[in-house]
């Protein structure tokens, strides 16, 4: 929707008469200059990372900033033989379980909060909303103790509970505001056909809510892929590390091998980049949704 509007705006300005545009050339150039400077400031560390990852170790020491003179992929192939693949796999498992768990629980919770008529909905919604603000550190020690008591310390499964709990507030909120906009007539028709709540959730609410569900999935994926503090406290053996912990361990071990480190950073960031390029509008609306509707 947004992209369509943007595109028509672009075409509209491309179609304006040349005379009007040439009169505005100077502010146009200034604007382009500002945009370019901002772009350089935004991407120079990323370019530094990419070009570093393609250099040999000697090549990097000779010429840390310039374009690589001889390009090598050895830094990337080197990752295959390290523990990096394990970290990557752990991160995928964590992201998949966290996203599935959050979406499932949030759909179930958002349905009664949006479609049942009861005065209990407002206080219950507030309970969930308050969670958006809570700093992770306020829960860190009790969750660490709890995880040990549950004998889940140093296991990936111990991360699922806190990860899902911290994503539930925003997920419930985004889904409930979307469910409220589903036309009442659909529900009435289903009720006349004798469908119970369970049927309604499965055959009306979920199929109608693709955009909201993918928005929630995006927010949750970003959280799960990048989370560091809980993983740092709840895991100890390196075979259980997700990527952020793995990168940190790598950094300690290989701080001399800068190109190797740059390659690891590149590969760790790649899924999020690809994800973004493939679904730009979804990622963007996912991030904006929480904040905009938060008012």
């Amino acid at each position, binding site marked *: 929707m947004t992209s369509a509007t943007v595109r028509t705006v672009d075409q509209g300005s491309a179609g304006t008469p040349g005379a009007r545009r040439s009169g505005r050339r100077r502010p146009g150039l200034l604007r382009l200059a500002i945009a370019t400077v901002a772009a350089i400031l935004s991407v120079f560390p990323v370019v*530094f990372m990419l070009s*570093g990852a393609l250099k040999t170790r000697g090549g990097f020491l000779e010429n840390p900033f310039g374009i690589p003179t001889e390009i090598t992929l050895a830094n990337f192939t080197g990752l295959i033989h390290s523990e990096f693949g394990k970290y990557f796999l752990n991160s995928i498992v964590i992201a998949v379980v966290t996203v599935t768990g959050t979406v499932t629980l949030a759909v179930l*919770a958002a349905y009664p909060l949006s479609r049942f008529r009861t005065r209990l909905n407002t206080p219950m919604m507030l309970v969930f909303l308050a*969670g958006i603000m809570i700093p992770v550190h306020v829960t860190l020690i009790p969750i660490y103790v*709890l995880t040990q008591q549950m004998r889940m310390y140093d296991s990936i499964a111990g991360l699922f509970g*806190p990860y899902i709990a*911290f994503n539930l507030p925003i997920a419930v909120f985004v889904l409930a505001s979307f469910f409220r906009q589903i036309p009442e007539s659909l529900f009435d028709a289903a009720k006349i056909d004798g469908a119970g709540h369970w049927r309604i959730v499965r055959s009306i609410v979920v199929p109608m809510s693709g955009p909201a569900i993918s928005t929630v999935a995006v927010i949750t994926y970003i959280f799960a892929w*990048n989370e560091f503090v809980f993983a740092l406290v709840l895991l100890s053996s390196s075979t259980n590390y997700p990527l952020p912990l793995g*990168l940190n361990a790598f950094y300690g071990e290989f701080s001399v091998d800068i190109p190797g480190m740059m390659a690891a950073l590149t590969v760790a960031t790649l899924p999020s980049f690809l994800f973004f390029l493939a679904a730009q509008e979804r990622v*963007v609306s996912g991030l904006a949704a929480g904040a905009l509707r938060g008012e």
Partner: protein
Amino acid sequence: MQRSERLKWMGFLLPALAVYAVFLIYPIVQSGVLSFSSWAGPGRPKTSVGFGNYAELLQDPIFWLSLRNTGALLLVSVFLQLPVGLGLALIVTSARRAKRFWRAVYFLPTLMSTVAVAILWRFVYSPEYGIINGFLRWVGLDSWTQGWLGQTGTALWAVIAANLWQWAPFYMIIYIAAILGIDREIYEAAEMDGASPFQQFRFITLPLLVPVLITTSILSLAGSIKAFDLVYIMTLGGPSNSTELLATYMFRQGFRNYRLGYASAVAMVMFAITFVITVIVLVRSNRSQHANGGRG
């Protein structure tokens, strides 16, 4: 609502509520309880110390330093990061073509994990191979080169700059969505009345963005109180505690010094600050909106 309906209402909510209660609500309460005790971890004796931990906090210079540093991060976040994000949003929305391209370019930093950003910026700041010192040497400002993260005078600002770099584009995304949501006709009418682009920004865009500005300030305040990963990896709070934040100090006391009670007291201070700031911002914004409504 009938009884059976109420049971169904509860039934749907129960799974989410259970996870939420166990991993979010209970731990907050438990942190509060722990902050009044002295404890070295599971299997060790726990003794009640009343307000002892809080009294000690007041006397602890590193606590005050970390509070001050968190305050600096907080101020920079609200008064620099948000305006930079808004500036980027204006660049993107006013671009005549390729809006999606500019948005994607500016957005790259926010897509990286904070751990990756922290490691990358350690290299950026590196005294010998760092791109910043390299640039300074290239333009002939050799005397300005320094170990940015290694000295107490620059380390905090170096970390804050990396934080700004990572998060300003996040707010840009929110502002872009809000600006594109403003009715085009208002701008067309203003243009016919001869309003300059700056006037249009000052008298149309900015006032209409106020609700979003409030939401983003709250997010940004909460974000800076949570800040941890960047400092933990870039400086570990050093050199000589000059980059210590509340979150890193809490972690150090709890998981390095095993003073779980004392660390919980720091955590409760973080909780209290978040709570107070949120309430103040919400109450004030409600009041100003009512005032505006009255005038309008």
